[in-house]
């Protein structure tokens, strides 16, 4: 099944073909753009985003502002890389803290995306940065989500506000609200609200998420999304944007080999920055998001750049 892996090879091949050329012709650009389109689709970038993106690449590659110091293949790679980084957010954004504590961070996303694990990671990281976080167990739906958050809280060494047993018992909106009050009373400076996973098409649960948001008035709402997601990333991101709205995105499971085209789709469709990358199952596998690294990953540009330097 080696056929799965040939995408960057094909792209590299197309670019290599441009190597001897002095100037890019429209035909050269079309051929390359076709391969880039293919590469992006294999990376699960949404088709609409691919179209807009390749359109922009084509225009720039044929325009006057290309870097004459580079050969045509390098020019194309450079343009692609720059455009990718622009969409992915250029600069990374940091968490917004409340002027008057506690800072409230709410997590939302599809089932199994990695929210509860992220709650633990964030808490541990914030604690290391000198904050005093508390976790709030507002997923009262998924079997033993509350227990899971308690275990994760223990691993992170932070308290967990979990007044309800969950498994269908308790009101998540009320728990979230009381969680913030608990933090105010006990002077914790950050509150991380874990919520149940929900589908973009589930209107009732989306309404519930929106009610949690209204109840806690968060400083940040982080949309947690699995890097392995396919074309559904856009519909899902839009549904969460319309349903709860979010201020930032966290991309999870980046420790695998998914190219993570969703990053491009979500950033471009929602205009919200990707703030963190989750890269493993243990609580330290967590880092700020780097748009440049992600750009190379989506198109496997690291390899391609090396290859072009060699030619």
């Amino acid at each position, binding site marked *: 099944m080696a056929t799965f892996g040939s995408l960057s090879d094909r792209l590299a091949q197309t670019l290599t073909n441009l190597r001897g050329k002095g100037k890019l012709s429209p035909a050269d650009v079309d051929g390359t753009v076709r391969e880039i389109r293919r590469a992006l689709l294999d990376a699960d970038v949404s088709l609409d985003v691919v179209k807009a993106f390749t359109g922009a690449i084509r225009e720039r590659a044929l325009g006057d502002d290309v870097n004459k110091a580079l050969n045509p293949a390098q020019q194309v790679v450079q343009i692609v890389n720059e455009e990718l980084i622009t969409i992915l957010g250029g600069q990374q954004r940091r968490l917004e803290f409340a002027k008057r504590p506690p800072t409230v961070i709410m997590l939302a996303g599809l089932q199994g995306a990695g929210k509860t694990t992220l709650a633990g990671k964030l808490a541990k990281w914030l604690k290391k940065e000198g904050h005093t976080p508390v976790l709030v167990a507002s997923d009262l739906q998924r079997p033993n989500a509350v227990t899971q958050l308690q275990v994760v809280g223990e691993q992170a060494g932070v308290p967990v506000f979990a007044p309800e047993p969950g498994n269908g018992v308790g009101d998540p909106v009320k728990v979230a609200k009381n969680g913030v009050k608990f933090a105010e009373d006990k002077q914790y400076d950050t509150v991380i609200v874990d919520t149940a996973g929900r589908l973009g098409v589930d209107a009732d649960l989306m309404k519930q998420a929106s009610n949690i948001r209204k109840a806690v008035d968060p400083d940040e709402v982080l949309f947690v999304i699995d890097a392995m997601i*396919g074309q*559904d990333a856009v*519909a899902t991101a839009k549904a969460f944007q319309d349903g709860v709205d979010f201020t930032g995105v966290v991309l999870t499971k980046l420790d*695998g080999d998914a190219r993570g085209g969703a990053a491009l789709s979500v950033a471009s469709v929602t205009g919200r920055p990707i703030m963190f990358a989750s890269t493993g*199952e243990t609580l330290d596998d967590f880092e700020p998001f780097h748009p440049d690294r992600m750009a190379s990953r989506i198109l496997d540009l690291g390899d391609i750049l090396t290859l072009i330097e060699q030619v």
Partner: protein
Amino acid sequence: MANPWSLSGALRGVFGRKTIDDSTWDDLETSLIGADFGPDVTEQVTDELREKVARYNTTDPADLRRMLRETLEERLSKLDPTLKLSNRPAVVLVVGVNGVGKTTTIGKFAKFLRNFDRSVVVGAADTFRAAAVEQLGTWAERAGVSIVKPQAQGQDPASVAYQTVEKAVREGIEIVIIDTAGRLHTKGGLMDELGKIKRVVEKQTEIAEVLLVLDATTGQNGLAQAEAFIEHAGVTGLVLTKLDGSARGGFVLAVQEQTGIPIKLVGQGEGIGDLTGFTPHVFVQNLIG
């Protein structure tokens, strides 16, 4: 709230026209890509349909719609989707990457088997993830089946699997379902651990099914997942979960075709009844509308 994307929605434009033209083909491609069939399968299907349209000399979008349905159904029906559970005990090992729905599927499947009066024991061999054992415990209770849990935190998953099968043999329980920790297919050590679980179980009895759970929201990475799990765990069937969302899971067609492993179960919700067998006709019906 935004309308969920759907292939049937996307295809309305394709088949709403009076005649097949260039934009019909563009829209068809858009729709197939949007359902995660991937660029390769999309190209194959589109080429095949172009050829058929030319051969039958039709310009009617309704014909194209029928041909699309037939093509996909035919391709999806090539493999036998029945579960082979006649061994006693029949041991089912459930594997997959993190968060795809393994534990939930086991809960539903156990209930499904109980409905047919089969006796079932589940084994909590995910000794790693926070509260995974408790989660399976809740499902076992809901399904009304027994469970074997690790005796100590972080116990070797293979030994839990062994003890589960042992209990089934001892007590004459008909079906054993073993939950395993989610693991990314790229992690060699964790994949080897699956091989160990298998070997340890096989000391007592043959394994009836190794089910690989795939999440319908997954994109082209699903192929790499399947490839690795087949190699390390000897997968015999696929389970496609989360089909109740807006994702269509089109990548499983390529997985089925490239691996020869059939989809055997489909999950469409978080409730205990939300599991069915795989019916190509229904799958395509939901896809095309």
